[in-house]
C-alpha cells in the first residue's frame, strides 16, 4: 500500500534539549500504529510534528506528498486531512456539541450548514452520543468529551487520525467506551497513529507498535514481535514494569 506519512531524519530540539534525534519512519495507508514508551521519551512531540503543531528543527515530514517542512506548503490545508485527538479533549467550551463538530466543515470547507449538521449527527450516532448534540462540553463526562472530540476530528473527513494518550485523562470506567470507538475506526481502515499506555488495546488493534525512548525509536514491529520478542533490552524492561503491576 501507499506511504501516507514519511518521516525523514526528524530532529526536534528545545533550546539545547534534544527531544527527537533523527527519527525515520514510514507509515502506510490503513496502518494502525501505536507509539509506546516512558514519559518524556518524545512521543507527543513526534506526533505533534506530524501535523506541524511543533516546528521540526531539521529533517522532513511528508504527508500525502505534501512536504510540511517546505515553507510554501499551505499548512492549514494539509491539516484538514489530519485529524488530531488530544489527551485533554480540547473541546471548545463556548460552543455546543453540534457547533464544535460543524464549525470547521462550515467555516473551512464551506460546507452547507444543513449538510454539515446531518453529517455531524451521523458521527455523533457512530460514537453513541446523538442525544447530546445540543449539550455544552462542560456538562459531559470525560469519556463523552473524548468521543465528541473524535467526532469533531472526523467531521473534516481526514485521511489520517492522530491520538495523543486519548484515554489517560479518563476514569477507568470510561476508557472502554473511547477505545471501542477507536477500534471501529481501525476496522474501517483509517490510518491512525496512537500514543497510548493501554497495552491491551495496542496488542489487539495495532498492526504495528513503535517503542520510543530518549528521542529514538528502539523497537518497531508487529505487536506480537514487540511485546513478546522485543529487540531492545530497554523495551523489555519497560514492558516488564508496565505489564506486571
Amino acid at each position, binding site marked *: 500500500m501507499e506511504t501516507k506519512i514519511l518521516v525523514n531524519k526528524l530532529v526536534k530540539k528545545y533550546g539545547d534539549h534534544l527531544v527527537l534525534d533523527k527519527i525515520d519512519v514510514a507509515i502506510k495507508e490503513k496502518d494502525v500504529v501505536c507509539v509506546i514508551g516512558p514519559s518524556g521519551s518524545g512521543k507527543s512531540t513526534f506526533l505533534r510534528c506530524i501535523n506541524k*503543531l511543533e516546528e521540526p528543527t531539521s529533517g522532513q515530514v511528508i504527508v500525502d506528498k505534501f512536504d510540511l517542512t517546505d515553507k510554501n506548503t499551505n499548512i492549514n490545508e494539509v*491539516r484538514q486531512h489530519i485529524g488530531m485527538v488530544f489527551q485533554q479533549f480540547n473541546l471548545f*467550551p463556548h460552543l455546543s456539541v453540534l457547533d464544535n463538530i460543524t464549525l470547521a466543515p462550515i*467555516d473551512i470547507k464551506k460546507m452547507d450548514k444543513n449538510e454539515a449538521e446531518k453529517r455531524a449527527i451521523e458521527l455523533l450516532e457512530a460514537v453513541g452520543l446523538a442525544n447530546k448534540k445540543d449539550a455544552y462540553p462542560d456538562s459531559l463526562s470525560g469519556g463523552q468529551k473524548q468521543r465528541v472530540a473524535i467526532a469533531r476530528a472526523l467531521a*473534516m473527513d481526514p485521511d489520517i487520525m492522530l491520538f495523543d494518550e486519548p484515554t489517560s485523562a479518563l476514569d477507568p470506567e470510561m476508557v472502554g467506551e473511547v477505545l471501542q470507538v477507536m477500534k471501529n475506526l481501525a476496522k474501517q481502515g483509517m490510518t491512525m497513529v496512537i500514543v497510548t499506555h493501554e497495552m491491551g488495546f495496542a496488542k489487539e488493534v495495532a498492526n504495528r507498535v513503535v517503542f520510543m525512548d530518549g528521542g529514538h525509536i528502539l523497537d518497531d514491529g508487529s505487536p506480537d514481535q514487540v511485546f513478546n520478542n522485543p529487540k531492545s533490552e530497554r523495551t523489555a524492561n519497560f514492558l516488564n514494569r508496565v505489564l506486571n503491576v
Partner: protein
Amino acid sequence: ENKVYKVGTDLTFAPFEFQNDSGEYIGIDIDLLNTIAKKQNFTVDLKPLGFNSSVQAVQSGQVNAMIAGMSVTEERKKSFDFSNPYFIGGISMAVHGDNTEIKSYDDLKGKVVAVKTGTVSANYVDKIKDKYGFTVKSYDSADALYDVINVGGADAIFDDYPIIDYSITKGKSLKRVGDIQERCDYAFAVKKGTNQELVKMFNEGLKELKQTKEYDGIIAKYTSNSSQSNDASSIDESTFIGLIKNNYKSLLSGLEKTLILTLVSFIFAMVIGIMFGLFSVAPVKPLRMLSAFYVDVVRGIPLLVLAFFIFFGIPNITGKPMNEYIAGIITLTLNASAYIAEIVRGGIGAVPVDQMEAARSLGFSYTKTMRKIVLPQAIKIMIPSFVNQFVISLKDTTILSAIGLIELLQVSKIIVARTLQSSEVYLITAIIYLVIITLLTRLAKILERRFR
C-alpha cells in the same frame, strides 16, 4: 417704563455678593440694590465683573454704577461719587463658640491669633500683637482660617466682622469678642459727576428701607444666627441633611460630569487598549515590542505627571492651546488604554493554548482561530476586569481636578468654599464615590462568577 442701569459688582464676596447654589447672585449688596430698585422704579442689570474690573467699568462708562462692598476712601472720592453709606464695615476678633477664656484683647497674652494674609486684619494684628503679646499665624485662604479655629490651631482670628457673622450663620461655632475696629463705610458708587439721579434714588430708597425695617431684615438674613431663613433657599446648610438638600443638584451634575469623562475616555481607551492588547499577542515580534513599550511607558508615569505634561507640555509642542477637558480625556485615555492592553493580553493568555492548538489542528488559520475560538472565550474572562478598570478610571478622574477639570470633587471644593463645611462635604463626596464604586465592583464580581 423703568430706566435700566448697569451695575458692576464683585464675583464673590460673601455675605455682600455671592452665588447661591442655583448660580444666582445674592447677598446684602444685591438684596439691598434690588429692593431699592423696586421702590424707586428703576431696573438693575447686574454685571458681576469682579471688584477691579467694576472700578474700571464705572470709570470708562461701561456700567453706570457699582456696589461691591466698596469702602469710601479719600482717594476714591477723587474719581467716584458715593451714596450714603449703607453699611459700616470693620474688623473684629472671634473665638471658638465654646471659648470662655478670651473675653477681651487683654486675654490674648501668649495666645495664637490667625489672620488671612494681606488683609486689613493682618495689618491690624501686626500693629497690636506686641502690645497684647500674642503670636500671629497667617493663612492664604478663608477656608483655612475658619478651619484653624475649629481644630484648635489658633485661639482667635481677626477678620471682617460681616464675614465672621456670615460664617456663624453657616454654622461655624464662633463668637465675636471685643469691638469692631478699623471701621469704614460701604457705599454705592458712580463715576464722579455722572448718574447723580441714580445716587439720589439709592439714597432715598435706602432711607425708606431703614424706616420700614426692611433694611434690618436684609442685614439679619446674612449676618445673624437667628432661626429665620439665612439663605435664599431657606435651607440650613450647617446640618448634614441641609447640605445635601441644598447641594444635591450641583453634586449630581458633578457626578454626571465625572461619569461622562470616565465613559468618554474609557471608550477611547478600549479602542486603543484592545489594539495594543492584540499587538501584544501577535505572532509579529515588532508589534509585540511596540505594545510592551507603550504599556511600560504609560504605566511608568504617574497619572498627574502625565496630565501636567499633556496640559502644559503638548501645547508647547503643537503650538495649539489645549482645553483642560481634552487634556483630561487624553490623560485618562492613555492611562486606561495601557491597563486595558494588559487586560486583553491577560484574557487571551488565560485561554488555554490547547484551544489554539485544537483549532489549528482542524485547519483554522491564526486569525480565524483568534476570532472564532480564542477571543470569544477571552472576552468572557476580560469583562469583569474591564468593569474594574472602569472603576479605576472613575477614581482617577478626581486627580484631574488638579488641572482644573470640573467634576464631582471639584464641585465639592466649590461647595466647601461657599459653605465652609469641609468635613461634611468631603464625607458626602466620599460616600457618593463609595456607593457607585461598590455597585460597579459588585457588578464585576457577579460577572466574574457568571463567566467562570
